[in-house]
């Protein structure tokens, strides 16, 4: 089997999920200059809700195809996550908009802890496995394998990203988002309802997070109350890699990070003569991050921002 091609495929699929999550970080950062630390937990909630609905439908014995079951679960999860995103902004961030920058960071951490523990109380500490109801046929491309699920994840992620770009570039609300990101006060003077735009941004990001949650849990076959943390961290890395606040950057950063990670995991053993194994996979994300920030602090596609005090 061709390792290079295989790792490239795995990396692209994983990267497209990172990209979806990274979009949530980058949109919020672009508008509020705030790291929404709780975003990873929204992904986790999305995965957990999807799984809960799927398992419930399976147990009830309704005779519908697996894809429909998963789609139902996903729709419920999207609704829940949208409400959650709206609530998080309203409760934890809006009261602190004028506070020093560290204050909303602490509330974000608080929200993370709360969501994790709520999930733990509802769904328990154990790993929840994803029932095998999705088609998993393997196709062979040039010596490497790709499953239906992987194709589905990759295509859906691309479609969603394209949709998002259209939304931001072509619609009225998208224009309002861009205006708010550039200058919130002026946008307000021009008749943009800034608060509504910010709420909308959170809701949009959370909907994407719900989809990403489904993808991750289906891809790895498990979900866990603690899964949001590392995922969020990597997605944030992806956002920074591409240039935070930049939507195209988040997509590029996500895909790149996915590929770098799986390439490194595939080859590190050979390169270091077995000294470092693939369990160092998680380290690469951070080395990449530090490397990017040191040599190109504004990210790959980011513009040099004027320094703010």
């Amino acid at each position: 089997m061709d390792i290079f091609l295989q790792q490239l495929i795995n990396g692209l699929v994983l990267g497209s999920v990172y990209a979806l999550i990274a979009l949530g970080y980058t949109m919020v950062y672009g508008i509020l200059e705030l790291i929404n630390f709780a975003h990873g937990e929204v992904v986790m909630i999305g995965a957990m809700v999807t799984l809960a609905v799927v398992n419930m439908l399976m147990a009830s014995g309704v005779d519908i195809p697996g894809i429909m079951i998963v789609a139902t679960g996903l729709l419920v999860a999207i609704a829940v996550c949208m409400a959650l995103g709206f609530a998080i902004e309203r409760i934890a961030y809006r009261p602190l908009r004028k506070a020093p920058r560290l204050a909303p960071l602490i509330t974000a951490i608080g929200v993370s802890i709360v969501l994790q523990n709520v999930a733990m109380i509802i769904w328990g500490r154990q790993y929840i496995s994803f029932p095998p109801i999705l088609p998993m046929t393997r196709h062979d491309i040039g010596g490497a394998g790709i499953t239906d699920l992987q194709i589905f994840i990759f295509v859906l992620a691309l479609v969603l990203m394209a949709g998002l770009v259209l939304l931001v570039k072509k619609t009225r609300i998208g224009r309002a988002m861009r205006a708010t990101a550039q200058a919130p006060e002026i946008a307000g003077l021009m008749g943009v309802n800034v608060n509504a735009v910010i709420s909308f941004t959170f809701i949009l990001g959370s909907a994407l997070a719900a989809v990403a949650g489904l993808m991750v849990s289906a891809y790895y076959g498990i979900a866990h109350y603690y899964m949001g943390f590392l995922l969020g961290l990597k997605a944030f890395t992806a956002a920074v890699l591409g240039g935070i606040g930049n939507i195209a950057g988040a997509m590029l950063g996500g895909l790149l990070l996915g590929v770098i990670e799986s390439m490194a995991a595939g080859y590190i053993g050979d390169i270091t003569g077995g000294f470092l194994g693939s369990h160092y996979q998680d380290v690469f994300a951070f080395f990449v991050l530090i490397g990017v920030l040191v040599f190109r602090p504004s990210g790959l596609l980011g513009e040099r921002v004027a320094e703010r005090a």
Partner: protein
Amino acid sequence: MPSNWQRLKSDRRAAHVAFVALGLLLAAAPFLVGASLGNGWVRILDFVLLYIMLALGLNIVVGYAGLLDLGYVAFYAVGAYLYALLASPHFGLHLPVWLILPLGALVAGLFGMMLGAPTLRLRGDYLAIVTLGFGEIIRIFLNNLNAPVNITNGPQGISMIDPLGAGGISLSQSFELFGMQVPGIYAIYYLFLALALLIVFISLRLQDSRIGRAWVAIREDEVAAEAMGINTRNIKLLAFAMGASFGGISGGLFAGFQGFVSPESFNLMESIMILCMVVLGGMGHIPGVILGAILLTVLPEALRYIGPLQEALFGRVVVDPADLRMLIFGLALIVVMIFRPAGLWPSKTRRREFSSEAEVPEQEALYDAKR
């Protein structure tokens, strides 16, 4: 309260009385706590002191110099593992404590410089995320450096670490005092108290020193600070090194106290917890930071009583208290920050900045000097 405060500041005799009372309270604290709440709480008291040291170390970086560091626990880990490697059967080394602790401070300080040097151009959130990455890298290496050469013993961690003590006397063993057996945690308390007071003292002196004022100047406006002739790069590096060395000492104490270290103790949550202590208490304000450390160490422990409380209220345990504990903790973080964004006990100047920020802008618009 404020009037009492002022009296303490103006009246020297009242200040002396208060000082002596505080000293007596600190000296008697473990026995009071031990007698009323049991020896388990004396152990928690030891941890309170340990976290005060950590929080004051991070306070230098975050509170004084305004550099948001989310990977502070890495230095704690460096100190702890250094102690573990140099004083345990793992390598068969048993160096004395008084040698290891300063060495831990030095090595952690070097790590601080290593982290600081490439990242000093960054600010704000970018710096936060790089330091976070650094913390995770250290943890992952600790977790995986057991093959092919076993250095850290991987996820199992290192156990049977030599206890704190000197000259063949171990502080962790119980000793006899006036015919009573006193557990080692009491002796540890006094050691930690002495070191915590030393660190408070250093923090206080630093705050008013040339370096301390340079840090604050950088925090407030880096460009202006540089224009005033401050070598911002070196001063920021110094903040990193200084904060890290406090973390290194605390790490060594932790290893000697626990007798066991594993990578799990040094995860990101720990960094976040220490940061919360600093921010929740009141950044850059030593009493505030101490208050934050006390509250955030005691609160999760006190919340363990939710189990019995539920039984008393509902007749049975409705939700597993261990789960509920962190939930309430998270809620507390949110509520406190919303109602007191400057922290529970901010310094006077910061409190003034906060009230003026909310009220003054309307007046300022009358004569806008920027145009």
